[in-house]
C-alpha cells in the first residue's frame, strides 16, 4: 500500500513537495487554509519574479496546475488541521474542511505554512495607512499585477517614487532583528520595472545595506547603470505630508548630502517577512518549536535543515525563515525526500 503523507500549506514549497511525493507514488493530502492554492504569491498577486522577471503566474500557475492534475494529490481547500495525534510512529490527523471533517492516518508530515508580510502600520514613522500614497511591497506587486499603477490619492501616475528598505526588518523596535533576505532584491526589481514602464518617473531607493545576495547583485548594478535608479544610503526617519499632495521622506544621506527632506508622489515600503500566527498554530497543534525570531525551528540548521524537533514531521519553505520563492521550491523537494524516507522506513 502506498505511503500516506500530509502536506500542510499550498504555497510554492508545499505544492512542490506534494507533487514530488505523488510522483514517486505516495498518497498526498494537501491542506490549504485559503480557497485557492499558491500561497502568498497568489494571494497578493505577485507580478514578476526575480532574478529573471518570469511572470509569477507562469511559475506559481505551473506549480498549481501540476498539483491539481495529479491524482496522487488530494487537495483540501479552506481547511485546517483540527486534531493531531501521534500514533506509534504514525500520525492521526483530523482535517477540517468547511463542510466536512475527515480523520486519516499519515506516515509522515510536511509543514510548509510559509510567512506573513510585516504590517508596516506597526512602525509609526512610515505613516502607512495614514497617507494614501504610502504603500508597501505587496501593494505595489498587486498594483503592477492588475496593471493599475497610479497614485492611490488621486489616480494620477506618479512623477517620483521612493523605495524604503528594511521596513519591519533589522529593527529591535519592531521586534525583528533578522534580515528578510528578499526585500532588497524585490525592491530593486520593482524600481527597474517602474523605470521600464514609466520612464518619466524617477525612482529612489533608500537603504542601510543593499543585500542583493549572490547573482541578484546583477539586478542592483543594472538598476543603476541601465535604469538610472537613484540609490541613497540612509534609513528614513519620518514620513510627513508635503506641499502639492506629496509625502516627504526625511532622513540623513550618510555619505553625501547630510540631512534631506525630499517630497515624493509615492513611497513604497519594503516590508519584510514574519513567521506569522500560523507558525505558533503549528507549535500548538503539532508540538513543534519556534526559534527566537518567530519562525519554525529545524532540528539542525546545517545537518538536518528539513527535520523538525519531532520525528516524522518535516519543514519546508519560508516557515523556517525568510526565503526566496526559488529556495522554497528547492526545499519543498528536499523535504519531500526526507518525508518519504521516514514513511518507507516506518511502514
Amino acid at each position, binding site marked *: 500500500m502506498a505511503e500516506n503523507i500530509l502536506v500542510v500549506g499550498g504555497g510554492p514549497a508545499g505544492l512542490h513537495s506534494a507533487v514530488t511525493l505523488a510522483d514517486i507514488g505516495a498518497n498526498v493530502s494537501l491542506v490549504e487554509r485559503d480557497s485557492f492554492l499558491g500561497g502568498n504569491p497568489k494571494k497578493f498577486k505577485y507580478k514578476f519574479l526575480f532574478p529573471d522577471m518570469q511572470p509569477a503566474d507562469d511559475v506559481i500557475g505551473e506549480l498549481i496546475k501540476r498539483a491539481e492534475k495529479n491524482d496522487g494529490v488530494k487537495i483540501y481547500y479552506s481547511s485546517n488541521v483540527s486534531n493531531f495525534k501521534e500514533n506509534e510512529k504514525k500520525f492521526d490527523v483530523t482535517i477540517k474542511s468547511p463542510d466536512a471533517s475527515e480523520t486519516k492516518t499519515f506516515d509522515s508530515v510536511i509543514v510548509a505554512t510559509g510567512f506573513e508580510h510585516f504590517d508596516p502600520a506597526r512602525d509609526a*514613522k512610515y505613516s502607512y495607512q495614514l497617507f494614501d500614497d504610502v504603500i508597501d511591497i505587496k501593494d505595489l506587486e498587486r498594483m503592477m499585477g492588475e496593471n493599475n499603477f497610479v497614485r492611490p490619492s488621486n489616480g494620477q501616475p506618479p512623477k517620483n517614487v521612493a523605495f524604503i528598505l*528594511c521596513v519591519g526588518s*533589522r*529593527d*529591535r*523596535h519592531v521586534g525583528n532583528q533578522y534580515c528578510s533576505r528578499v526585500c532588497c532584491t524585490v525592491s530593486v526589481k520593482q524600481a527597474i520595472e517602474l523605470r521600464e514602464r514609466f520612464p518619466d518617473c524617477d525612482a529612489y531607493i533608500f537603504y*542601510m*545595506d543593499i543585500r542583493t545576495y549572490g547573482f541578484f547583485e546583477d539586478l542592483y548594478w543594472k538598476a543603476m547603470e541601465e535604469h538610472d535608479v537613484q540609490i541613497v*544610503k*540612509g*534609513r*528614513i*526617519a*519620518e514620513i510627513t505630508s508635503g506641499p502639492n499632495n506629496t509625502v516627504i521622506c*526625511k*532622513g*540623513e*544621506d*550618510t555619505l553625501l548630502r*547630510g*540631512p534631506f527632506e525630499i517630497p515624493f508622489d509615492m513611497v513604497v515600503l519594503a516590508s519584510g517577512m514574519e513567521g506569522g500566527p500560523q507558525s505558533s498554530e503549528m507549535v500548538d497543534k503539532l508540538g513543534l518549536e519556534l526559534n527566537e525570531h518567530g519562525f519554525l525551528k529545524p532540528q539542525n540548521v546545517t545537518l538536518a535543515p528539513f527535520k523538525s524537533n519531532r520525528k516524522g514531521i518535516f519543514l519546508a519553505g519560508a516557515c523556517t525563515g525568510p526565503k526566496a520563492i526559488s529556495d522554497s521550491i528547492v526545499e519543498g523537494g528536499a523535504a519531500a525526500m526526507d518525508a518519504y524516507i521516514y514513511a518507507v522506513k516506518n511502514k
Partner: protein
Amino acid sequence: MEYDENGVSIVPSEFKKEIFEEAKKDFRYEEYVRGCLNCGVCSGGCPPHRFFDFSPRIVLQKMKSKDPELIWAMMDEYVWACFQCFTCAMICPFLNSPGGIIAILREIAVRRGLESAKKVLKPYSRVLLKLTAYGNQLSSDMIQPDFFPDWGPHIGYASADLAIKRKAIPMPTLQVTNLAWDVAPEAMKELYDIFDEAGVFKIIESVDPSLYEIIEDIVDDVRNS
C-alpha cells in the same frame, strides 16, 4: 593648564583618556552604546541635525571608536548642540541612545567644571539660582529683553506692567512677579538636602563659584530660620 604658541590650551592625552574612561564607567554606558550600522535614522530624525553641524550618528560612532581624541573633540561645543529630545533613542534599530551618551558626557563636563560647561551654563545662572535657592524655575520678572532676545519683537511689551498682567490671569496666582509659586520653608529645606546628597551644590560650585556663594547665603538663611 599648558598653552601652545597661539595661546590654545594643550590638553594632555592622559586627561582625554581619563574622560573616556569616566564615560565608559558610567552605569548607563552599556545600555546606550550597542552596535551601529550607520543607517543614519537617528540623524534623520534629529532636530538639530537639520540645522547645525551635529549628528547623533557621529556621536555614537566616535564613542564606538574608543579613540579618546575623537571623544574629547566633542566635549568642547559639540555635546551642547543636542536638544536632549531623545528622538534618536526612540528610533534607533539597535536601541542605542546617542542622546544618552550626550547626557553622560555633559555630566562629566559639568562635574569636572570644564570650560565648555561653564560657558554654556553662564546664561542660566538666574534660572539655577531660582531653582536651587527658591524651588522656582522661571518667574515673570525674569522675562526681560536683555535675557530673552530670542522671544521676538514683543518682549518689551511682554515684560512691562507685569503686576497688572499677572492680576489678569483668571487662575489663582500668588499676585507677585518674583515667584512662580510659593514653596514652604520645610519643602525648601528638604530640597536643599536632596541637592546636597545628589551633589548638585558641588557641581554649581565647580562651574560657577560666585553663583554658588549667593546660593550658599540663601540656603544658610533658610536653614537657620
